[in-house]
């Protein structure tokens, strides 16, 4: 075997090995979470309140809290993010101000989530007097995922060929008609996929809701957007750091983690199915 072929073979083996390592790590993670979590999961675990200072019972309030937080985050972040993306790609002229806005959005995406938590505490909880509540928490999560929604939506919008826009304008369509009838329908799947993935991220975040929305334990289920809630990610944190009965709390934490992972994976799965369905009908 000559040297060139040997190098080729080595490079291939090396890359293959790297992929296997990644697959193995992911597999290991799932194995641990599933094997430790699955034992505790049953109907009661998903639908009951916690009992005996969270050493027994279910995690229903945390599931409900995470559900409410996610839904409210969607309500705030999607209209805002998608509108901003439409403005930036379709209307804004490419001047210095818009470039600064773009750079700021990109940098915002890199800010650690705990910083968003502090920001939410200062603005929503204290300054606007929303208190520790679903409202404050979902606004904070909304701000956290805005940059992702804007970026992915902008990408999806820019992917619509310029020739479609020109064709529409040349027929006497207004800019808004062109956006509404040509650009948005053709970028819908991309916007949706990006949005769902970012919402998955929001669902799993702990730091932004730590000071703004969650409570360690509450007997009452939330009855308005001003209620404080329990949430899955924080519930795991609480179970692992507080309380006095680790032997009964750790399994509950793994069970909670499993529920959370499946929730986020479920969201991503929806995004993937959706994207594939739209991709099939799209040929340009």
């Amino acid at each position, binding site marked *: 075997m000559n040297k060139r072929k040997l190098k080729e073979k080595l490079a291939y083996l090396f890359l293959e090995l790297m992929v296997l390592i990644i697959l193995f790590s992911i597999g290991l993670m799932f194995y641990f979470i599933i094997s430790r979590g699955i034992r505790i999961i049953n109907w009661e675990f998903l639908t009951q309140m916690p009992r005996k200072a969270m050493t027994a019972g279910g995690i229903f309030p945390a599931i409900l809290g995470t559900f409410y937080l996610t839904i409210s985050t969607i309500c705030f972040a999607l209209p805002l993010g998608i509108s901003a993306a439409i403005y930036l790609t379709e209307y804004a*002229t*490419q001047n210095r101000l818009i470039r600064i806005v773009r750079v700021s959005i990109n940098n915002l995406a890199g800010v650690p989530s705990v910083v968003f938590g502090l920001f939410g505490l200062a603005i929503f909880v204290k300054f606007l007097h929303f208190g520790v509540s679903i409202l404050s928490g979902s606004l904070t999560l909304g701000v956290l995922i805005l940059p992702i929604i804007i970026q992915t939506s902008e990408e999806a919008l820019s992917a619509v*060929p310029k*020739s*479609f*826009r*020109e*064709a*529409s*304008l*040349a*027929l*006497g*369509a*207004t800019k808004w*008609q062109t956006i509404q*009838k*040509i650009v948005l329908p*053709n970028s819908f799947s991309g916007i949706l996929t990006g949005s769902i993935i970012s919402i998955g991220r929001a669902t799993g975040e702990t730091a932004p809701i730590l000071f703004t929305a969650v409570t360690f334990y509450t007997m009452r289920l939330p009855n308005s957007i001003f209620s404080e809630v329990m949430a899955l990610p924080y519930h795991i944190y609480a179970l692992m750091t507080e309380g006095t009965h680790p032997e009964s709390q750790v399994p509950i934490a793994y069970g909670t983690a499993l529920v959370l992972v499946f929730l986020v994976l479920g969201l991503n799965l929806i995004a993937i199915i959706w994207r594939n369905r739209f991709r099939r009908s*799209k*040929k*340009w």
Partner: protein
Amino acid sequence: MVDDILQNKNNIKMQIKNLNFYYGTHQVLKNINLDIKSNIVTAIIGPSGCGKSTLIRSLNRMNDIITGIKIEGDILLDHKNIYDEDIDVVEIRRKIGMVFQRPNPFPKSIFENIAYGLKINNLTSNTRELKKQVETSLQNAALWEEVKDRLNTSALDLSGGQQQRLCIARALAVQPKVILFDEPCSSLDPIATSKIEELIQKLKEKYTIVIVTHNMQQAARVSEYTAFLMSGELIEFDITEKIFTNPTQKITEDYITGRFG
């Protein structure tokens, strides 16, 4: 034929007056003056980068969507400057249709491609009317016979030539007065090209047509008037026959005989 054209002499549809066009500081068009007459085909020829696409895109204000441009001078449609402040640019683009270099049907059905312009301009009041107008437009673009049984299939499944005729039908549907063709055959094979050329001959009975082409034979075949553009300047503008047989300018002759370009 030349007599026919001269009879139409006073029938000017569009007029370009002292047109200057700049991309940033770069001047692309230099003091262009050109009359476009009704119901004939006016061809714009010239080497690549001479400004012919910029010129034709100024006629329906498609250049407006590009940032960093400056335009001076007047372009009149029926004696009214289309760059006046009180002009509705959307209405101008409806009156002056455009067919682009590459066929660009929307990723919709054949029917919806035509119906789009009718719907956004509120040109039909009911579904029956809409269907009728879609059919008429497709017939006028010589495409109806080929697609009448598959109106609901995707326009992207059509061949390149069919797609371009669909784009012509789409432009016809919104009842323009003028149709601009920006190198409409540059991505088509010879057979599809000849079909488009035939169609242009038929369309000039009803519409005023301007065509940009890099293909001199095409200009000679389809147009009554030809403008020769070079480096942003209008070198010569005359009856096509004259441009191709007896041009006044040496440089025009050099170009049409293929000495450069």
